[in-house]
């Protein structure tokens, strides 16, 4: 049985910046062969030098990624994708601008085709509060926010600082999930995907990401206590955006497990063969006290 394919569902209202974000992801997938399913095929703009082949509903890139048009049936698009000779390493589905991403994400919560890694909702900082109060689309927008494991507050460059603060406080009040503030949908791909291929621990520990995000490493070959680890991961709230690691649990010391965390959602699964229990890479807002996060996590070691 092939391994379940990690799934990211990207939600957000019209114009929030989903397509821009997807274009960035296709251009730099951190080496992963991802499949991206999109609604607005016509707006996918990848460097033509990257295009290996293209037809009416599929673009294949030379970096191994593919982009498929959803057309009128996500069901058929997914079935066709799974029937391809080489399945993708990861799947990203763009929910339509009015869809509830949770409804699509459920394909990664049961069965064995996909494993939901995260629902990420992109928010337009300029318009979200107005839309959330709109009698026609307010419920739609609020559903999209409620479904998210991680919110990307986009277009921060288009609003005044005090407005951005106000939107941010409002979002924190309606959804208790981490928020990544950005402009032009410039979310580091590592935050969204790259999961199985995050930079190596050595590289991660030394990388300088300026003010965009902070990255910290807990190198540890000792096992964690399951309950303590769960408690620690649940405690981070908005301090942590993403974590990935290869680790062991005291309860099953012989198995190396892959830890994945995006926003409020995390999971432990069997690690690929040959993976060594090296520790955890953590990514969060630049203002997070990384040392405190690491200490919390360290306290969960056996």
């Amino acid at each position, binding site marked *: 049985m092939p391994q379940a394919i990690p799934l990211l569902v990207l939600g957000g209202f019209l114009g929030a910046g989903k397509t821009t974000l997807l274009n960035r992801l296709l251009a730099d997938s951190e080496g992963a062969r991802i499949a991206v399913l999109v609604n607005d095929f016509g707006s996918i703009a990848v460097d033509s030098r990257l295009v290996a082949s293209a037809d009416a509903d599929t673009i294949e890139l030379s970096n191994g990624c593919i982009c498929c048009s959803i*057309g009128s049936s996500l069901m058929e698009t997914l*079935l066709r994708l799974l029937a391809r000779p080489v399945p993708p390493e990861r799947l990203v589905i763009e929910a339509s601008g009015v869809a509830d991403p949770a409804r699509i994400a*459920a394909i990664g919560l049961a069965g064995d085709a996909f494993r939901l890694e995260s629902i990420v909702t992109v928010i337009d900082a300029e318009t979200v509060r107005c839309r959330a109060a709109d009698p026609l689309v307010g419920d739609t927008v609020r559903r999209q926010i409620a479904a998210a494991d991680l919110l990307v507050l986009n277009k921060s460059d288009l609003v005044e600082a005090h407005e951005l603060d106000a939107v941010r406080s409002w979002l924190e009040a309606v959804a208790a999930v981490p928020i990544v503030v950005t402009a032009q949908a410039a979310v580091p791909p590592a935050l969204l995907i790259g999961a199985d291929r995050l930079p190596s621990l050595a590289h991660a520990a030394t990388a300088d990401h300026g003010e965009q995000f902070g990255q910290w490493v807990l190198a540890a070959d000792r096992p964690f206590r399951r309950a303590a680890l769960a408690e620690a991961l649940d405690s981070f709230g908005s301090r942590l955006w993403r974590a990935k690691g290869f680790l062991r649990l005291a309860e099953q010391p012989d198995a190396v497990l892959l830890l994945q965390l995006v926003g409020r959602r995390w999971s432990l699964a069997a690690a690929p063969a040959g993976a060594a229990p090296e520790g955890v890479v953590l990514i969060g807002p630049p203002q997070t006290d990384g040392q405190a996060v690491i200490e919390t996590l360290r306290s969960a070691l056996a």
Partner: protein
Amino acid sequence: MPPAAPISVFVARKIVTMNPSHPEATHVAVRHGRILGVGSLDELARWGEYRLDDSLADKVLLPGLVEGHSHAVEGGMWRYCHVGFHDRRGPDGKLWPGLQSIEEVVGRLREAEAGLGVPDQPLFAWGLDPIFFGGRRMSRADLDQVSTTRPVIVVHASGHLMNVNSVILERARIDRSSNIHGVLKDDAGDPTGELLEFAAMFMAYRVVGDEYLMTRTSAEGYRAFGRLANLAGVTTATDLFNDLKPESVEHLRQVTAAADFPLRLLPAFNASSAKPEDGIAKMAGLVPTSTDKLRFGLVKLMTDGSIQGFTARLRWPGYFNGRPNGIWNMAPEEIRRYVDAYHRAGYQLHIHTNGDEASEVTLDAIEAAMVAQPRPDHRHTLQHCQMADAAQFRRMASLGVCVNLFANHLFYWGDAHYSQTMGPDRAERMDACATALREGVTLAMHSDAPVTPIGPLFTAWCAVNRLTSSGRLLGAHERIAVADALQAITLGAARTLKLDHEIGSIEVGKRADFCVLEDDPTAVDPAGLKDVRVWGTVLGGRPFPASGG
């Protein structure tokens, strides 16, 4: 000048023309597939030499019926076993009697299973409607009686639910631990085999593949849809939601080009599958390739969901049972953008609006587009539009908007609308055909096949009698006269397709498309309108008996 083609004169017991200046006749002359004259034999003989065709001498002719909202996918579905509660006829004319209990459904599935070859070939069935089974739901145990080795999928009439057997559950790894909303479980915590919504149904399709979904745009499916239309007396029908991908367009061309294909088919482009500018470019390429039996040009928009699925967008006071408001298929601002773009480009829009909030947003969008770009006689048409009130019909009239109401809903879901979705008051004025006519809106009505069977005479019966499947009279004041109903399924529907200069009535210059009946619908008891027997059709002067002979 080439020599004039020969003239055929059809004689009938009665010809109901739908042309008010000449409402009835006994003979119709045809040349070049078009109507040369309507009248008595004496009158028509003045055109010169003719051949008298008396094969329909004891029949009643109506203009060929026009189904303004159907989906050709129904044709493809008849490859699979039908298990509906109501009687239904397949494209081969075979009557599939309605199944009144789960036991009867299982019985039919076992018969179908016995007819399958390869041991692992999945058994598909469709049309299940458990609301009629007194609260009992189908379970995996029922379907395990059909097969414990072969995947079995039974899709419900709504299309939004399915039942599967244990083989599928096991292969899809759906079990006690599957904690998603769409996997229904019994009291012991095990999946019942009933799957609803996208994710759960995806897991089942993943086991059996996409064959069932793909047949919808196959050439065979389109051919079968032509036969279904012929059985119902329909000579023009829409396929009102089609991505018009190259492969599907090729199938449409191939099938409709055949001389023995008995239908004029109008696929409507699913506009939301492309940006407006790309869709408009695509349409501009397709429209000039239209033929007399394949017409491109219609554009479809989907704005909300369905009322019985609680996904339609309603205005205050919302759903009768307190469910939250439904969901948009397109955001209101997208509706405005698409309406504006296609309106400017000169196309005619057919817009799905089930709930009255969706209708309101759509009317606003059309009004704004018309202010920005005045355009006479656009005939944008609201499809379903089941909850519109008198004020909305007045807006349609003043904006030049047509309506195609879903009269079949009165029978199939009228009881549910009365008790759950809309409550008595709004249910009694749903699909308000009388209000539409009173306010001067061009009216068509439809089946939405395969949601309900294609059959305009049944649809007319629904609008005339407004009886639900339990026998309740739902909105006595919205009943319309038989003559008005017949108009709606012929000339009215033709007007909503901008084809009323070509079809919809039997008069000089129009295409010789007739619905051929054994009984006279204008003379039968209105309660018996649905039982009027269809002999077949004439398309472009060529008879197509439903018997195939």
